[in-house]
């Protein structure tokens, strides 16, 4: 035990590398101990008994327990005081690990030099999460220090200790028992417990509630995947669904009749200056188109398919200007065009008296950012707008002045019809977030050489990473493990180094294009850094790269 020395350090580092999360936990815990105002005197490890090699959760638990007990024995009130609301958990702790106490009041704290200078809060936060990538503890050398409890320490010392904790992230190991070396490295349960207790000490007890709320993953779901089902292509899906007999035909027809009876009322409302918005479950497209054809006897009607994935609202406006109004000059921004149309229908010298605009899915992805322009159109007395929404939170896209402009009268148009057309652009099924290799090739075929190279960089990176991964972890790979990802910045740097992009803006726009086609996906890590990856495995990528050449 005593002579672990340098060797121990080495072992410790490798261990730490394998379990970076644990070291974080340790840090968090120790810090808490210091924070609690325990009078710990850190002296150098003259009579160091232990090594960091056995940096084990259990040991730490035992250590703090020992400290607790010592405190309690020596000066009960003092010990209880600072513990406060978290006291419960602390004492619970003690009981549990009494067996490992070993009767002495010495604890050793190992100082991880690698993590020097980290703020306490950060260490604590990380520790509480119990995971997190990469640890600077790899380079850690441990300076053992013995903490000797001294009853007569006063407040000043406590403060000093706190500062100490701030400056150096302290790792703490216990030497109490020699059995530790052989012990299994802290399993999940232990970690959980430590987290909880640490949290409990840090703040008031109710915080634990929230901690539990967010750490417990809710009910566990099974690991079944759709791969158990036979693959079904979209075309097959469509042919099958076309044959499926719709349910409740008769009733739904009655429902539709009822809706259709309201056509005249809606017309009346439109003429009175209200714009109509339809909501409710079911595709409202067919019935609205029917209404539009009826309305078109009166004045030109424009039908805009807001669900259309590549809808270009500017083109829509241009089309209105050129085909309805008959102006040839259709330049300007969307706001300009919208106000041009608005102005035309407000002016007295117009030829077209009024116009209907029927917008299917005004909450559609391509219309979401053009609500302002739509509101300008709807604001005009001579432009009657009918729109439908399907997303349940759709009304949130309007602010109060827009709502005033739109002047909606809401009508429930529940049809129970399936959204065949609205969703014909989406992919059914499991591949909805991915496109197959064929799709990727298809997209790549239409791109320039430069952009292809941008794709290639990521693909090659992923291939290399996955090869590394395979070599490294082999059997350890869990099912559903994440595909290798590349940090956004690294990707950008790599592309810039090869002169593929000149600025981040162009890079971002290329990336957006890939993302739109679902070739590349991105993800924001918890700390805000962005990671990108191609949702295909290495073998697939290699085939793609080959066929690209």
């Amino acid at each position, binding site marked *: 035990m005593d002579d672990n020395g340098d060797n121990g350090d080495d072992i410790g580092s490798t261990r730490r590398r394998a379990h970076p999360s644990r070291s974080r936990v340790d840090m968090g815990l120790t810090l808490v101990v210091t924070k609690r105002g325990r009078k710990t005197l850190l002296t150098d490890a003259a009579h160091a008994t232990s090594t960091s090699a056995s940096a084990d959760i259990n040991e730490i638990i035992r250590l703090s327990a020992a400290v607790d007990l010592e405190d309690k024995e020596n000066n009960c009130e003092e010990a209880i005081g600072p513990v406060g609301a978290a006291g419960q958990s602390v004492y619970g702790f003690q009981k549990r690990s009494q067996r490992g106490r070993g009767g002495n009041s010495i604890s050793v704290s190992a100082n991880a030099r690698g993590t020097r200078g980290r703020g306490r809060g950060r260490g604590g936060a990380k520790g509480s999460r119990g995971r997190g990538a990469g640890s600077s503890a790899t380079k850690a050398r441990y300076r053992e220090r013995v903490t000797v409890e001294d009853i007569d320490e006063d407040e000043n010392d406590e403060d000093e200790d706190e500062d100490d904790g701030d400056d150096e992230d302290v790792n703490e190991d216990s030497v109490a028992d020699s059995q530790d070396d052989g012990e299994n490295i802290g399993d999940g349960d232990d970690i959980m417990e430590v987290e909880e207790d640490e949290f409990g000490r840090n703040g008031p007890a109710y915080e634990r509630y929230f901690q539990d709320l967010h750490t417990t993953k809710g009910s566990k779901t099974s690991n079944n995947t759709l791969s158990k089902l036979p693959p079904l292509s979209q075309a097959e899906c469509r042919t099958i669904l076309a044959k499926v007999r719709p349910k409740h035909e008769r009733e739904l027809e009655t429902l539709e009749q009822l809706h259709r009876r309201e056509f005249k009322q809606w017309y009346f409302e439109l003429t*009175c200056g209200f714009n109509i918005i339809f909501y409710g479950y079911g595709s409202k497209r067919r019935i609205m188109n029917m209404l539009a054809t009826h309305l078109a006897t009166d004045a030109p009607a*424009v039908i805009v398919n807001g669900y259309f994935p590549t809808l270009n609202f500017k083109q829509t406006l241009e089309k209105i200007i050129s085909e309805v109004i008959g102006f040839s000059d259709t330049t300007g921004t969307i706001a300009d065009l919208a*106000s041009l149309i608005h102005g035309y229908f407000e*002016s007295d010298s117009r030829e077209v008296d009024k116009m209907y605009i029927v917008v299917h899915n005004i909450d559609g992805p391509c219309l979401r950012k053009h609500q302002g322009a739509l509101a300008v159109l709807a604001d005009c007395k001579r432009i009657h707008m009918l729109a439908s929404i399907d997303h349940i939170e759709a009304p949130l896209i309007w602010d109060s002045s827009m709502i005033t402009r739109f002047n909606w009268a809401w009508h429930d148009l529940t049809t129970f019809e399936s959204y065949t057309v609205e969703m014909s652009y989406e992919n059914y099924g499991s591949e909805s977030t991915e496109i197959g290799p064929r799709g990727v090739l298809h997209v790549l075929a239409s791109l320039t050489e430069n952009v292809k190279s941008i794709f290639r960089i990521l693909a090659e990176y992923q291939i290399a990473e996955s090869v590394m991964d395979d070599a490294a972890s082999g059997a350890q790979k869990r*099912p559903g493990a994440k595909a290798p990802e590349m940090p956004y910045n690294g990707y950008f740097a790599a592309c810039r180094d090869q002169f593929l992009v000149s600025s981040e803006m162009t890079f971002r726009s290329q990336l957006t294009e890939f993302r739109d086609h679902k070739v590349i996906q991105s993800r924001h890590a918890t700390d805000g850094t962005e990671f990108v990856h191609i949702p295909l495995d290495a073998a697939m990528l290699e085939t793609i790269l080959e066929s690209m050449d």
Partner: protein
Amino acid sequence: MAEAYKPVDAFDSMTESTFILRPSSQQQQPQQDKPKTKSKRGRPTRVTAGKSNNDDDDNNENISANGGYVQLIQARESADSMQLRQRLFEDMWVPLEQLLVEIEQQVNNVGVTEVCSFIDSSYKRIESREEGQLEAPFAEIAAAVAFSGVNTGDHSKLFQSLQNQLVSRGHHVALLESQYCSSLPNMLKALLDQVSASLGVSDSTGPRGKSSSAVFGVGSSAKTIPYDMSLLKLWWDMSKTSKDSRAVIILQDFEGFAPMIVDDFVRIAARYCQEVPIVVVLGLATSYESIHQSLTKASISMLNVERFNLQRSKQCIDAVIRSIFVEGASTLLFGAESYKSLIDQFLMYNFSITGFVNKLKYAVMNFFYAQPLSVLAAMLKHSGGGANGRTTVVECPIRLSEDQVELIRMQKSVQEFLEDKADGPDGRKYVHHALTDDEFFQNTALPEMVQLLVSYRQCYRLGMEMILAVQGAMPKSLHKPIHMLHYYGISQLFDECVHWKTLSAVMRRMKAPEMEQLLANLCLVVEAAGSIDFAHAIQNGVDIPFLLQEATDLISDPEAALTEQNETSEALSKRIRTRTDMENRPFLLFDDSSSDQMLRALDKCSGHIEAILRVCLLPYQRAPLQEIFYYKQSLLLDTTFSAQPRAAVQAALGKSHYYINCDCCRSAAEDLDDSNDDDDDGEDNVDAEQRLMASMNDTSIAYRLHQECGRMINLYDWYSAFASVVEQGGGQARKQVAQSEIQARFMRAVEEMRFLGFIKSTQRKTDHVMRLTWAM
């Protein structure tokens, strides 16, 4: 993907998102499409729908015929009556709207005038101190901060009137909205366009004044000009503007502008404000803080800010309610429920007058569109208009049909009216006539009822005015705004309403001079009201003028009046300062100045006033024909203006039978418990609702299944559950549902749920989706 997809109809395409239907081309287009549709989808629904389409085409052929009005009472209503309704709507709404606009303008004018006079005097102060003072090394722009309240929807009207008034005072105004000022160049462009139009220096054609300049600003000539503030200076010098005119720049929605842009703009403007007298008006919806938060200190220091409050929507709503509901500018009044819904939307939501007016308009529309008896509104003729309008009863211009007369007779208030009549002389005969003879009913009984209604309204109005007068005599803390008073008036009886009680309690503590003053005021109110039909009051046994007169006499000469009224000696001798009186009037203990006689007179006076108010503020429920003329469809207003799309979708999926009302999904539930009597047994129904059945809509099944899940949903497990539900009904309906069909249907359902926003895909775990909604 693209090659596999066939467009469903003419308005669906893989390449085109916008379709235009023209009136002329309409004839051929749908005709072409319809057969195509049928053949293409070949689904049973399509065919039936297509067929019914044709049936319906006759119905809907000219949707624009009669302005969308339809004949009510199962289409048995006469065309005359329908057209009358249409005409009445126009007759009523147009002046009403006009009135509303006027009221709003009037109320706003106060604040607007303040701002205007500030702008008039803005640079004069700076000019006037030229002598003997050092000129500041920097220039300050005169700026007005106008708080205009949170009702941003109304602001364009407010600022429009500000602009108009400024223009009429000879200033040059640019009204900027944040949506056109997304960048500094855009802002300058919008600004200069408007100013140039106002200065008349622009060489382009036509009068592009005011807001339309921004509108037509995309013209070709406008493009060539480099927009710069120096241009403004140039124009300003060129055109011979008078010394007093200012260049006013209004930022209507200051919060909407990007702070950087305004910041830069202020710096630029400050550079020019010595040559061009620029005044900036910042419209604020929130608080003064927002200026400090968005602008830098440097630019704030360049503004010489004066604050104004343009927030007047509460005054406005009071004025509106007074003139429309109390003074009766509107034929249609609101029942307590719907009035509450109307006013609540205003008070608790956004203070938006526009929203209020829209709701009101919709109610009026609904009244004339859907109420076959709204033709009776023709019998009320407003003359004079506005506050002093008189309502007279005229004959109904059309003969009411049998159905309509029958409908009127069916109203409860009409029945009550006839019952009252039956007690009078010749009552039975009258009632008999009214019930059997349509002619007599329309010519005699109906005008009488309408007259009574008019009388009730006049009395109500008088009562409201009197309450206001009474309130005027009270301490400020007891004052309530008129929209509250009106709500009390229509919803509660006089004796039940807390506020009325408070008022009368305070009234009973009044001393002689105060009471005298109050009575004088009340007399003035009655006089101002002019000729009023007191039939309603007399019917309830109260003669308002007489009572008022008596009270006045009493207070002026209590001794004489009391003896004159030969009160019984017993009443006279009874001491007024009894124990119970002490409880009501503790102050009497300390007040010896007034004699017993005077106290008695005061007591009587307040009694009289209460009696008058009691009858005047009778809720409308007693007035004949109230069912027709008091609007009660508050639910309709709520669903039309505060719709709950999410709840509707959830109801459609979770409780489909509310929409579909089918037998198939219910039968099994009824088998389960035979005694289930529709809505008797709530719990059983809940159970039945929760049973999943194969006959339900696919998405509905998926939705109900997903409700049982946690935050993460495993698609495969979801699918298994779905399949088991779908297959369970397979026995009776179909032989065996193919696995691939179930899969396809499931995928469609999931995709629909995603489309509707109930779930979203996630990458946390393979083949999982995340649940997004949690409400029931």
